[in-house]
């Protein structure tokens, strides 16, 4: 069987928009970024062993004899991991390779028990695809995907438990990673961060990776180089293991600036691997290896070529969920949301799922505003994860329904919202219990207005001369009715009584 081999190479070189150029002392520079994102497959067990792939656990407890590289142990591939790689590929509109192969990447390190990592070097399971990414000017760009391959994660070396020794925990050893390699299509720190964000959103939609950056489920190796706009390509540096969108942007910005300064001083860039220091926001050379790496890749003789059928791929395709770009379009079309609002909601499947549940049968735009302004605002302020929101989607929808059908007005709704957070109760329970129903009884409202007009005759006169005073009057009436009066009715009656047109 003849299969075309693929190696990650820099091919596409569109020029950045002038607004993305970086000003140097000697002129403008353009940043070229390509990323290799490692996303851990959301599997129960490891890529080649039946040990648990779950995060945490006592050291070396999620370890089989395969993961610890014991003599005579052999790998057997996890079907679910193969499916997730294909699923991710389909989500990126990528070519799925029905024939792929595992190679060994040989190097010595204490957290690499076999002395090699099983990876797909020449023949990855997923080929070229693309991902829509928002640029800093709110336009979208397409970032090419070079390939996705499956590989084993390494274990964890802990250097601070003993001054003279390293402690090794192999719980992660052998967990399945998807390495998603982009083309060098990214042109700014913001685009780099947004690419990472969009990719995270996609894998979470697909359910192929939990995207949990704190637990290391997604890490990026960021390749950065600079050049004169449209000019000859520069030497690139690879920044390893950047684990948040914010850090991706910071690392690219710092690294580009560093390279520009060197070049403008007449220096040259060494192709090297660097680390991003989250404390200083700087990148630094990883302690240089004593010798150049020579990984001696060769096909793993313990495994056979990975052959899948078109039916296998089609079966996965049939279960793909609606993807972020399609969902965004639907939110714009069906709910009348702005592109920006729709983008915020679809950025995270949790958000859009919540939104759709809350908006069912009520005013979607109003739900959007309560969700993104009030709820997000409160969560942010109080440092609460969205997943732990005290207000369920159903309850937020219930609140909006009460506003919509006139049971409460917007002002009362804010109080109800606060009480919902406090108690976790639904809106109608709170409204009922606290008697917050809006008054539409015109008689009662008229009486409240009459009483106020009688006590403040000078303000009556003032209002008749300055119709803008109406707002002040509405406020007074609302206050005297405990905020429960229907503001529209108050408005109407006041106008009549004050004689304002």
């Amino acid at each position, binding site marked *: 069987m003849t299969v075309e081999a693929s190696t990650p190479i820099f091919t596409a070189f569109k020029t950045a928009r002038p607004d993305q150029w970086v000003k140097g002392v000697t002129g403008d520079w353009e940043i070229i970024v390509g990323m290799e994102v490692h996303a851990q497959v959301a599997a129960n067990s490891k890529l080649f062993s*039946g040990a648990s792939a779950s995060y945490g656990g006592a050291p070396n*407890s999620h*370890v089989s004899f395969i*993961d610890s590289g014991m003599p005579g142990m052999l790998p057997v591939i996890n079907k679910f991991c193969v499916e997730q790689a294909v699923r991710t590929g389909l989500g990126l509109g990528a070519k799925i390779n029905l024939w792929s192969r595992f190679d060994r990447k040989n190097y010595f390190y204490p957290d690499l028990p076999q002395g090699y990592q099983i990876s797909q070097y020449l023949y990855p399971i997923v080929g070229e695809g693309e991902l829509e990414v928002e640029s800093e000017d709110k336009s979208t760009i397409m970032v090419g995907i070079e390939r996705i391959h499956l590989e084993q994660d390494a274990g964890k070396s802990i250097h601070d438990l*003993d001054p003279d020794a390293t*402690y090794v925990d192999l719980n992660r050893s052998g967990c399945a990673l998807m390495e998603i390699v982009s083309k060098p299509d990214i042109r700014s720190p913001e685009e780099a961060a947004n690419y990472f964000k969009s990719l995270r959103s996609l894998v979470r939609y697909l359910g192929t990776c939990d995207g949990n950056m704190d637990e290391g489920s997604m890490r990026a190796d960021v390749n950065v180089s600079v050049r004169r706009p449209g000019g000859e390509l520069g030497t690139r540096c690879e920044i390893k293991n950047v684990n948040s969108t914010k850090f991706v942007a910071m690392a690219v910005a710092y690294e580009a600036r560093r390279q520009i300064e060197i070049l403008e001083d007449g220096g040259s860039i060494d192709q090297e691997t660097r680390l991003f220091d989250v404390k200083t926001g700087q990148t630094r050379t990883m302690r240089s290896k004593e010798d150049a790496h020579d990984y001696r890749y060769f096909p793993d003789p313990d*495994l*056979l*070529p990975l052959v899948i059928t078109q039916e296998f791929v089609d079966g996965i395709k049939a279960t793909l969920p609606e993807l972020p770009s399609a969902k965004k379009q639907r939110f714009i079309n069906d709910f009348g949301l702005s592109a920006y609002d729709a983008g915020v909601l679809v950025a995270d499947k949790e958000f859009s799922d919540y939104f759709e549940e809350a908006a069912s049968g009520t005013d979607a735009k109003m739900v959007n505003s309560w969700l993104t302004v009030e709820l997000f605002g409160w969560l942010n302020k109080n440092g609460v994860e969205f997943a732990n929101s005290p207000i369920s989607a159903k309850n937020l929808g219930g609140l909006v329904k009460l506003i919509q059908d006139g049971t409460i007005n917007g002002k009362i709704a804010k109080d109800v919202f606060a009480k919902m957070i406090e108690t976790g109760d639904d809106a109608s329970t709170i409204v009922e219990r606290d008697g917050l129903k809006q008054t539409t009884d015109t008689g009662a409202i008229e009486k409240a207005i009459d009483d106020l007009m009688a006590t403040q005759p000078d303000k009556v006169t003032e209002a008749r001369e300055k119709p803008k005073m109406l707002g002040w009057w509405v406020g007074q009436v609302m206050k005297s009715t405990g905020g429960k009066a229907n503001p529209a009715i108050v408005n109407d009656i006041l106008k009549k009584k004050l004689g304002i047109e």
Partner: protein
Amino acid sequence: MSVSEKDVRKIARLSRLAIQDEKVPVMVDELNGILNWIEMLNEVNVDGVEPMTSVVAQVLPMRDDVVSDGNQQAAVLKNAPKADSGFFVVPKAVE
């Protein structure tokens, strides 16, 4: 092709094998002897031949994603030259 002393030192380093200085020339001769013998393969015409990685004519079997292994910290660490608190203990490895 033949190897030099420098090559031998390089591949010994890649292989993580300490090699005594006086052994290097000996190893150069031995490896060159073997490599010269291997050169015989250049006589074989392999035009259009697919490289053979396995003799097994079946597709890679896949297993279900179930946790069926692990939870055996003591067994995993049993043969370790050095272990502490559930970890393997190895010489300081600095990035």
